[in-house]
């Protein structure tokens, strides 16, 4: 199992209100799976993604990544696991406005200390694959939504992560661009990358091999779309 959670809890507290975003979530994800997480707004989908992506800490329960309990690891250690194993794709792309396409894709490799010549080769390879080579020196605001998301996906996979976490990757895209992104994700999954995707779209969820439905911070049903082989 690449991911295993045991009664995972995440509670947000403000001065007056306490919100349980994740409530005793038990989950197992095997290497190579493509999981879609669905559910109404506020049900805890994104929180689950953030906690599993180690960009948020659980309040209770256990979280094993690749067999290692990471819930109580310090930020530095989690950052280390994150940068070598995980890739993120966001609904709002979250590209850095001050960096060009090339530099945005290159960024994760700067943090893993990959030499410049290797970085260049890998980024160009990805830009070629994503059909954004001609935009390499453009800034995010000069790109269409679809192009921006392709850059974001390229950035997510540049370090060849074992797991991609995608938070509504097609939410800000038209159907043509959305299809394009889903196709890319499917290809990555076919190549062996585990994908965990939060989505509202049944159409997108159909690309996965398992759908997890959430309500009020809990996993309510799990449907196998097609058997993972």
């Amino acid at each position, binding site marked *: 199992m690449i991911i295993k959670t045991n009664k995972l809890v995440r509670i947000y507290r403000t001065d007056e209100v306490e919100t349980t975003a994740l409530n005793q979530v038990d989950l197992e994800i095997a290497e190579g799976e493509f999981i879609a997480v669905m559910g109404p707004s506020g049900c805890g989908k994104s929180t689950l993604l953030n906690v599993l992506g180690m*960009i948020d800490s659980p309040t209770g329960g256990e979280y094993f990544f690749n067999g290692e309990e990471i819930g109580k690891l310090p930020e530095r250690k989690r950052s280390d696991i994150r940068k070598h194993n995980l890739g993120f794709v966001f609904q709002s792309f979250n590209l850095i406005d001050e960096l060009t396409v090339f530099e945005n894709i290159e960024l994760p490799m*700067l943090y893993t200390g990959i030499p410049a010549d290797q970085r260049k080769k890998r980024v160009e390879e990805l830009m070629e694959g994503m059909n954004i080579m001609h935009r390499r020196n453009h800034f995010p605001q000069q790109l269409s939504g679809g192009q921006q998301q392709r850059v974001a996906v390229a950035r997510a996979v540049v370090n060849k992560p074992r797991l991609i976490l995608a938070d509504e990757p097609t939410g800000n895209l038209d159907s043509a661009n959305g299809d394009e992104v889903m196709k890319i994700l499917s290809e990555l999954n076919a190549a062996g990358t585990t994908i965990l995707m939060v989505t509202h779209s049944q159409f997108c969820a159909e690309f996965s091999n398992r759908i997890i439905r959430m309500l009020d911070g809990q996993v309510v049903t799990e449907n196998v779309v097609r058997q993972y082989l």
Partner: protein
Amino acid sequence: MIQNYIKIALRNIFRHRLFSLINIFGLALAIGICLLIILLVKDAYSYDKFHPEGERVYRLLTHADRKAGRSESYASSPFIMAQTLLEQMPQAEAWCPLVRTFNGELRLEGKAFDFGGMFAGPAFFDLFGFELAEGDPASALTEPNSIVLTDEMATRISKDTSPLGMVLEVGGYETPFRVTGVLKPFAGKTHLDFMALGSLSTQLALERMPDAYNITANWQNYYMTYNFLRLKSRADKEAVEAALNRIASAQYAGLELESRDAGYRFSLQPLAKITPGAQLSNTIGSGMPLFLIWFLAALGVILILSASFNYTNLTIARSFQRTKEVGVRKVLGATRGQVFGQFISEAVVMSLFALLLAYPIMKFARYEFEQLSIATSMDMRLEEDWQLYVLFLLFTLLVGFSAGLLPALALSRIRPGAILQKLQNTKLLQRIGLRKALITVQFTITLILLITMTIAWKQSTHAISVNFGFDKPSILVVELQGQPFEKAAAALGQVRGVENLSGISFPMGTWRDGSSDVRTESNAERTGVRDYDIDHRYLDQFGIELVAGENFPDNPAQQGELFAIVNETFVSQFNLGQASEAIGRPLILGDSTNVVIRGVVKDFPYKPAVYAMEPLLLRYNPAQWGVLNLGLSVGDTPATLAALENAWEKLAPDDPFQAQFFDQLVRENYDEPMDLVRVVLFFGILGMVIASLGLLGMVTYAVETRAREISIRKVMGASAVQIVLMLSKAYLLLFCIAAAIAIPVSFLLGNQMLQFFSDRISWSPGLFLPGVLLLMAVAALTVCSQTIRAALANPVESLRSE
């Protein structure tokens, strides 16, 4: 990685031009001024670095304990004290006395050259690192009537040929001097200020003449000699100081001291700590006092803090946009240190941009500073070299680091999951936002500077105007430079345009004066009193009022002194009863001059306003009248001055005409304090500009982020005035808090400052209002410039953009 940081920093600077300009300009102003301060401090610490074994050389200081309880430290000390120490203390290896009686005028072939100098002992070239271009250092200062010239003086005297061996006449000395050496240009700056050195043996020979005033064997004379000693390596300075004070206890026991003194203590001051150093009386040359360095450094720190606050404030304000970037970077694997490094790099890049602008600002400020009398009197030759540029760069990097520290810490702390966290709500104190606290601090500091400057300015102008002579602008004070008074009065008094004249020993209202030991009876204790020798015309010419008795009689031919005139404070201090009762009372002046009090004048401020009202003794001794006061008629003053100059040239063709109007002379006393006030004013205005820039940035940002709210309010019926008030009231509140802190702090600081003056201004709202109103007006203009624009904008624009 660094490359990436710098790239992002540069793109951010160019993308957010207004914020960048505000930050860069504010930082440039502050850094520019600090560069000047660094230059000044480096210059101040560059004195006397060229003396070999200078670390073993000390100056002997005198600490005179006054009967009144205070103590005054002098850079000078008795000649004989150092001589005795050298004889008794083997740890003292060498000694060079410098006696300050050698100055005046050098004459060669009918030409006269003013010079300042000292008699120096033969060990001069052994103790100090001055080198001779010509002459033998071993013998140049041994024979009586030998003179060593600086290269500058040598060039003035004899441009084309070497003056070595030439015979020069020196004003006041019968025997001419032979030039035995010409110094090389000094290897560095020195506090020793001289153009010529005479051999000490000349002074010793003069003292052997009958009735000569003795300096070198005189234990009471601690103000004519500067004694420099070199101790043996590994000598114990404390032990030498203990020996000095043992010698003092033995020698001063039973000796009659100056009337104001209770005793003397001695200490050694390392040569390296003379400039900059503690403020001492009777110093040799110029150099920046330590307090001034601290004062300027404190003002510089205030400016840098204010400019850094702008950076911190604006960066934190914009952090909302940057949190996304930080979150993304962290999600992609950036560590906290890497994010911290990025934001620090941005601040450093910003400060390096500021440095480019700061350098010309420093050049301009330097030029202006060099024009101040405080700078000219300190002989500032500010030099730039590569070490200085390294200092500038290091300082700028430090400023960038400090300015970026808080935002970098705060932004790097963001958890990647909390990408939308609003950092601008960071709390410094329980209920005060960090940004608000920083703006309040800026306002407060600026107000304190402006108010204290107003107090200092008003006090200084009060000190000038209160002086009794201020309403006598038409009195010209002529320095007689040794010319007999009657002869000069006859020659200049007949010039057309001169209405009246009088004589005095030193001009009143200045730092110069004389003093006499006074007793009311022979067995009474002597008390030192400031004195002036005036003629019978002086009181009338200056409008000084007699409250009892009479003026001096018109009798310039009088040989012995018969009378004295005193002021009211003198009468009360010497317990002479009422002013009228003091008339006719005898006084003993010095050892044996017996006079009677002929008149009592009303108290008037005869010294600069930093002096308390003290007893005043007016004597009648024509030989002492060194200054001629000429009352000029209102009319063609330039013509009168030209005629007077002509008359003077006939009277004393070798001496330049030295004359100044009395009010100008009085004003000059305040040149240096007024310069300090100007410096504070300059810093206050800079502080205000920097604070206003920061405010402009904050308001612009607030208006931008509240554009939608403003539009909705307008659609709902809010008027432009209501919008402006809504956006401005928060800043008004901050201003009020700043004023509430700044006013009492300024009161305390101003009160401390006023303690230096005996005649003080009284407290009034007028001291606080100008600063408060000025800053308020500038702040209001800044806020309104943005809020009015927002209030008048078409609401649909921002709603549509939403």
